[in-house]
């Protein structure tokens, strides 16, 4: 009996120790191991591992990046974004904007059919428009069309949108409104959510909530043969280490985001390339300019001079980022480069002395609970300590934080002093990167001007830029605006992101756009 038990025991122990010892000797074989891909079988199927679940596949009701790019694999709008987020024609051959910026006329392509065989025409645009504008449907795409008053069907292949006020970002917003087959819309919202029918290069196959989204090549795509991939599987894998492991095992052919701390592992890899692409995400600390001592421009400038942005990039972003040298990322429309606040402790101290805060003051910084945010806030605390600003870090769970920031009715009720946060305009336009952030009409709870930045000139500029259809004029205004806001320092300007993706070398044509969306429409497997 004892012998038998002893044997069992040794066996179990052996099994357990095998399982646990993997960590030590596992690194050795990594480098040479090939990322075997599913293409070996010749069926040209790729898997894309991403960090979040799809929330919805209703193209008129998606707000998160992941849902949006999942949808974009199957749907198209009248116009769309290219890889630099410039507007290019899609379902519309061309468009015209009237001089008063109130009428947008689109000439539609005539050779397009939806995946279910329905023709794409002016009537289809109308059905989509009506669906979005119907209050009962309560769709988020309505916000993209908030300035649209009506839609006029001119003929079978021409439509005109009439605006009730000019809006400089309008054309970008049309790229945010994909067209659904009228027949699918007829079936109702529940049907649309579960059965995407668009015009894109890929067709819907299956979506298992919380696991995968599967799409297959649309052989009848109007734009011809864009891809040689028969099937694409999007697989949400939230854990960084697991996502990276999938790239190593070949279970995934494209991984986004690639965790910055894992990039080194692939430096000498023959099978995997790390793709870096610019991002529209701007990282900053908003300073409540309504509160003392932050109401003093010198104090805010001193804070900007006290933070070493290059060190920030190294410490917090592992070197993957650029200094934020304007109020928006370089990938945003009408971006204009400013001279960054140089890191100069003496200058910061002198400015604080002029402002009467030679001995510094106590401050509070808020942020969410993500480890990168906490690291960033600790960095700011340490930097500002050099000029005797004693920062207390308050890290709050996202829902609570959002409540604290957005519920105060009046600027004087706001408790926030500094907020460590990021911003990216959803459609890459200058209006989205300024109006909600710097117009005095957009203090919380009405908008995201959490710096309570109050400058009449800036508020007027924002209105002026919207009121004109002249892009030259718009560019001038936004250039002036960026210069003014940057010099007024309502933020500590930190960095813009770099999008990092891991790609198997036999895959090409898949890329991450500046807004963080993965584009597969031209995927090619070698």
């Amino acid at each position: 009996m004892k012998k038998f038990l002893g044997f069992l025991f040794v066996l179990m122990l052996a099994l357990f120790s095998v399982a646990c010892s993997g960590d030590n000797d596992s690194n050795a074989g990594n480098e040479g191991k090939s990322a075997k891909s599913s293409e070996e079988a010749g069926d040209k199927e790729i898997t894309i591992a991403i960090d979040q679940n799809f929330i919805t596949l209703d193209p008129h009701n998606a707000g998160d990046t992941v849902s949006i790019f999942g949808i974009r694999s199957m749907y198209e709008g009248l116009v769309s974004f290219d890889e630099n987020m410039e507007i290019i024609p899609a379902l519309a051959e061309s468009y015209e904007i009237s001089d008063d910026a109130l009428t947008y006329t689109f000439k539609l392509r005539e050779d397009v059919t939806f995946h279910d065989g329905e023709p794409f025409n002016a009537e289809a645009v109308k059905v989509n428009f009506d669906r979005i504008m119907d209050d009962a449907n309560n769709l988020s795409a309505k916000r993209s069309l908030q300035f649209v008053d009506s839609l006029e069907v001119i003929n079978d292949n021409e439509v005109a949108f009439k605006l009730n006020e000019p809006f400089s970002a309008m054309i970008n917003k049309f790229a945010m409104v994909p067209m659904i087959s009228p027949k699918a819309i007829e079936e109702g919202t529940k049907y649309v959510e579960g059965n995407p029918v668009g015009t894109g290069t890929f067709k819907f196959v299956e979506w298992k909530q919380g696991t995968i989204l599967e799409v297959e090549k649309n052989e009848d795509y109007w734009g011809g043969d864009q891809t040689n991939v028969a099937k694409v599987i999007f697989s949400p894998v939230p854990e960084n280490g697991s996502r990276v492991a999938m790239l190593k095992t070949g279970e995934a052919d494209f991984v986004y985001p690639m965790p910055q701390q894992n990039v080194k592992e692939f430096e000498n890899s023959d099978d995997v390339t790390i793709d870096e692409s610019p991002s529209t995400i701007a990282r900053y600390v908003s300073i409540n300019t309504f509160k003392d001592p932050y109401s003093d421009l010198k104090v805010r400038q001193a804070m900007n001079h006290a933070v070493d942005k290059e060190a920030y990039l190294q410490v917090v972003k592992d070197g993957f980022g650029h200094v934020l040298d304007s109020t928006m990322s370089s990938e945003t429309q009408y971006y204009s480069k400013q001279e960054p606040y140089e890191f100069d402790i003496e200058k910061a101290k002198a400015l604080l002395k002029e402002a009467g805060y030679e001995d510094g003051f106590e401050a509070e910084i808020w942020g969410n609970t993500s480890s990168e945010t906490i690291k960033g806030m600790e960095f700011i605390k340490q930097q500002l300590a050099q000029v005797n600003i004693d920062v207390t870090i308050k890290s709050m769970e996202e829902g609570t934080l959002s409540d604290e920031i957005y519920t105060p009715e009046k600027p004087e009720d706001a408790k926030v002093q500094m907020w460590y946060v990021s911003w990216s305009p959803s459609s890459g336009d200058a209006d989205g990167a300024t109006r909600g952030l710097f117009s005095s009409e957009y203090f919380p709870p009405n908008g995201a001007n959490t710096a309570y930045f109050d400058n009449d000139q800036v508020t007027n500029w924002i209105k002026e830029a919207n009121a004109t259809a002249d892009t030259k004029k718009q560019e001038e205004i936004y250039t002036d605006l960026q210069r003014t806001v940057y010099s007024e320092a309502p933020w500590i300007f930190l960095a813009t992101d770099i999008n990092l993706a891991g790609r198997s070398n036999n895959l090409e044509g898949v890329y991450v756009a500046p807004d963080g969306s993965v584009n597969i429409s031209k995927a090619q497997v070698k």
Partner: protein
Amino acid sequence: MWQYLVKRIISLIPLLLVVSFVVFMFIHIIPGDPARLLAGKEATVEEVEMARQSLGLDKPLYEQYFVYLKGLLSGDLGYSIKSGAPVSKLIGDRILPTLGLTFLSILWALIVGILLGIISAVFRNRWPDHLGMFTAVSGISLPNFWVGLVLIQLFSVQLGIFPTGGADGWKSYIMPSFALGAGIMAMIARFTRSSLVDSMKQDYIRMGRAKGLGSGSIVFGHALKNSLIPVVTVAGLQFGFLLGGSVVVETVFSFPGLGTLLIDSIQFRDYPVVQAEILLFAVQFILVNLLIDIVYSFLNPKIRYE
């Protein structure tokens, strides 16, 4: 016994009402506004207000509770605020994988844990015991996300035996259930050992030895059954916990379980999903406790329920 069962099950109803009320109040009282989160960061007050109205969140709390209760009693769990999908579907999609993972984890933890416990007790204070308990302590101390990542590195990246994650086929259940069960196995081993060591000191064991029974018959025939009551308690409680899903292990293995759904929903203040899930956990926990009580009576016939 049957009468007792029926009584226990009927007593579930008031308990669940209380749970539903407490959960509802707590989730609504904590700060955070799903209307704001739904409307997005660029939303204006009007848009947030519109979202709030469409969600019915502008009504007084007691009214919202009765609407919820009415739906609940007619079997309607409502719709997710975040995705608009029916809550029953969201939970339904994840309940089977979670159940499968839970059963597998508990099963191997019980088998290995009890065996390890027996070996340690039989060889008490000798090297098999020390090694066994070392294994058990390791099982408890190693964080399960770490075990998970090590398993992925070894069995997926190096050996290519198991997939890194997902819930497709039995292969994808092996590593997560190992990571989840390791701690429980260790706990069961320790409880089995100490309980069995106690039993072995009892008079009836000495009596058995005096009668000349073999060690196998003493351990398996007499001592073990009496030692299993605390083990069943521990295993049962762990079983209940696992049914709620494990956020950490689900995240590491991208496993579509209930744990990550709950955390996502709490972060988004997705009230209907949170309420339904916690209610489900309450039911599961109560049923597991009932099951434990029944197992007691099998292990020790002196325990009778009227």
